Structures are given as C-alpha cells and as structure tokens.
C-alpha cells in the first residue's frame, strides 16, 4: 500500500518566544496548520507520533488528550535530529498494516536559553558524567573537532563551509518562516566570532522555539490531493559505537537500500534536505547518501553545485538560517520537501518531482548515532 504526506505545517520559529509560550501549544499550533493544509480536522486523526525534548512531564498521550485525538495508534520518539525519519518509518508501516489511516507526525520544542542549557547539560548520562564536568555546554566543541578532521582528510578550508552557509541564507531569503533571511557574505561568515575553532557563529544553528507537523495517509485517502508519496524510509542506529572519526554517518549503511526501494538514484533526485546541524555534516551526509561520490572534488562540488544553488539543497534555508527548533530539526527538512513537492514553496519553489530527506542526531559522546533517509515523490 502506498502512503503519502498530504499536509505540512510549521509553527513560526522564533528566537525569543513570547511569555506564556509552551511546548504543547507550539506543537498544537503546528499540528493545526498541517491538518488545515490537508483539509482534515482533529476528528479525522487516528494515529499520532510526537518527538520533543521539552514536553516533560507530559507525554504523547497527554497531547492527544488535550487535542481531542481518539486514536488506534500512538508513539513517542526520542531520536532528536533523526526523530522525523524514525516516526515516518513507523507511521508508514502502521498505515500499511491497517493500524491507523490518518497519522499526524509532529516534533517541536520551547527552546529558550534555560531550556537549551538544561537540555545540553543532561542530554544523556555520558554527557552528564563526562562532558558537562569538563565543562562543556553543548556539542560545538565535538563538531569543531569533527570539522577539523574532515578539513584535513579532504583538504577543505573554512571558505568551503562558508559557501554552504551563504547558499542556505540565499534560499532562506525566499522563506518567510526563516529566522535569518538577510544576505550573508563569505566575508561575514569568515569575520564572525569563533565559537570553537574552526567553527564560527555561522557554522552553528540558532536554537529557536517552534514545531513542525505532517499528515500521512494511505494513498486511497489522498485521491485528488497534492501529495508527497513516501517511496522509502531506511534507518541506521549506532553504526560505529562512537569509535572512529565520525566522518561517516549511519547514512552510509542505510542510504543504498532507500534509493533501491525508491527506484531513484542520488544523481537524479530533484531536491534534498540534509540535516544541517553544522556545514561539515552537510558534506558528510551528501557523501554518505551518494550525492557527492567518493573521490570527488568536494570543494568544487560545493562551489559549482551548492554555492551556485544549482543543487536544490536545504531550500528553506535549513536549520542554519531557518533555526533549529529542538527535536523539530529533522522534521523541518521533511516539511520543506513536502511543500516543494506539493508546489507550496512560494518564492523558493523549484521544479521537483522527487526529494530526499536525511535525519541525523543523538550525540552519544562524540558524534551522532542515529541516521535515516526518506525518498519522496510528487503525486496527485
């Protein structure tokens, strides 16, 4: 049975949430927008999946209750930047198995300064015991060292990463929902204060408060609606046991099967959302999913395909310009792909029949441990 996304919504991202903003209300706002986009109401929903770092003490069922969802399928996900792909993978099977027919997949967080500090200090026990006491507040230092390893291995320089950030900012200009839309020059990028050498301010995602949601249904319910058909979702967890250089993600393992099942090849896909917590991870994931082939001149690819925006990559501006709404970071790219495939991307609309969306996340100690790839196709 084919399964499609027929609605997508995003609660407006903001660096400074209004007093009284809560995680639950932010999620409900995104869900309401996605349902409206799908032409459905809360009464139509019979499956619900949610991921959030800041929902505590509530859980998925509390949200379902407060939104009036009466469900036959429910899940809560804890996989951060890989949460969207994980929830989608489960949702596709739930619909195929007949456990639910209309599933809302949502993720979001209230991510103000206090929430962010609390999240990164106690991200997991390894962080709490071995990184926070260094002291280290968040993953910038870890990805700075990963970036250094990538620079050394592939002969990359800061300008190469800067061209990725500059291109994504250009895409963001066409996205009214991005928190940073004013043009960024390479000089701006290079001149910004260093956060953790070699990473500067524009290598790091701005934490924002916000949420994203998509509505997934069996294809027969999607008749006559613009849809993004899910061709494949594959995942990899704990691919390297945190041993090694972190330059290869779990996508290296799971991407070939996603392309094979979808019948789409990496060189043919029209738009790509890769999980851009740092520009180095954009590079790593493009290599792992086969868009940048092994042995290719990476600097040249960045210049001629990404910087030129010949490649429709992170067309919302990505998290680097749109913002990282906590666990919504992975769903943000899926919402953008769904909007592009359904012709709803406004000033940044590209001609796209197929899309690929990667997820990457959950730094256990040194680098991310969860990854997934989704391949989608536009349909009517």
């Amino acid at each position: 049975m084919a399964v499609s996304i027929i609605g997508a919504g995003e609660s407006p991202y903001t660096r400074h949430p209004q007093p009284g903003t809560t995680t639950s209300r932010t999620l409900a706002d995104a869900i309401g927008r996605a349902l409206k986009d799908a032409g459905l109401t809360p009464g139509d929903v019979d499956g619900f999946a949610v991921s959030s770092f800041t929902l505590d003490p509530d859980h998925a069922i509390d949200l379902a209750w407060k939104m009036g969802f009466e469900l036959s399928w429910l899940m809560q996900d804890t996989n951060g930047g890989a949460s969207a792909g994980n929830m989608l993978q489960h949702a596709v099977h739930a619909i195929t198995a007949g456990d639910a027919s209309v599933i809302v997949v949502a993720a979001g967080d209230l991510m103000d300064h206090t929430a962010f500090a609390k999240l990164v200090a106690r991200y997991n026990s390894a962080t709490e015991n071995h990184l926070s006491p260094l002291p280290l507040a968040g993953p910038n230092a870890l990805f700075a060292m990963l970036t250094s390893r990538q620079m050394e291995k592939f002969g990359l320089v800061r300008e190469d990463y800067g061209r990725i950030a500059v291109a994504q900012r250009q895409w963001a200009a066409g996205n009214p929902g991005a928190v940073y839309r004013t043009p960024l020059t390479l000089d701006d990028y290079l001149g910004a204060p260093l956060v953790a050498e070699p990473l500067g301010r524009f290598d790091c995602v701005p934490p924002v408060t916000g949420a994203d949601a998509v509505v997934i249904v069996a294809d027969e319910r999607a008749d006559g609606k613009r849809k993004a058909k899910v061709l494949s979702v594959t995942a990899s967890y704990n691919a390297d046991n945190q041993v090694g250089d972190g330059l290869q993600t779990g996508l290296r393992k799971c991407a070939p099967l996603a392309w094979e099942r979808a019948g789409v090849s990496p060189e043919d896909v029209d738009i790509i959302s890769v999980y851009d917590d740092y520009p180095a991870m954009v590079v790593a994931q493009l290599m792992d999913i086969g868009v940048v082939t092994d042995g290719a001149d990476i600097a040249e690819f960045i210049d001629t395909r990404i910087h030129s925006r010949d490649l429709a990559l992170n067309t919302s501006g990505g998290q680097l310009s749109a913002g990282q709404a906590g666990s919504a970071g992975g769903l943000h790219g899926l919402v953008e792909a769904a909007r592009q495939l359904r012709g709803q991307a406004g000033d940044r609309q590209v001609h796209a029949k197929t899309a690929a969306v990667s997820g990457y996340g959950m730094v256990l100690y040194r680098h991310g441990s969860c990854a997934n790839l989704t391949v989608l196709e536009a349909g009517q």
Partner: protein
Amino acid sequence: MSAIIQTCTNCSASYFPARLICRHCHGTEFADDKADTGVVETTTRLSNGLQIATITCPGDVYLIARIIGGTADAGDRIRLTNDPNDDTAVAAFVPLHGTEL
C-alpha cells in the same frame, strides 16, 4: 591521578564511557583500569579560552578532555588525569566515569 577506563575482564577490550555488554566477547564483567597517558588526536579552542581535545588510547578508546596546565597539539603524548586541579604540568582532564549506567 589517571583517567579511568573500563576493561572487559574476559577479553580485555577497553571502553569509555562505560558499557553494559562487551561488544567483542559479549561479557558483562568489567573492571576499572588506569590510563596514565594518551595521544592528542584533535584539539579545539573555545571562545571562553578553554582547549578541548580528543585523546586516543590503545584499544579504540577515544576520550574527550580539557587541556589543563598548558596547551597541547595533535600528536602530543599527554598525561591523563581525572582531577581538574591537577594542573601543575600540562595534562588532559577526563572526568571520571560514573559507576551508574
């Protein structure tokens, strides 16, 4: 004051942070071993001035450490300590692994 590494009592595989099951022999008995030195693999300097490093030890052990008592460069062999105040000479501070898992 060395760094404390978890060692499988059956096959001597080394881990940091501590694991529940040895992924080489699937044993569940571990002991704490001292590691006195390691090799600096990568470093970064934070905006607050701290130098953070990745340190390698034999057996595919990678430690995230703060350099204290001086600065370190990639390739240096460096003394390991679990005491952040042990900074009379350059060392890599590796917070003790907890016993809770």
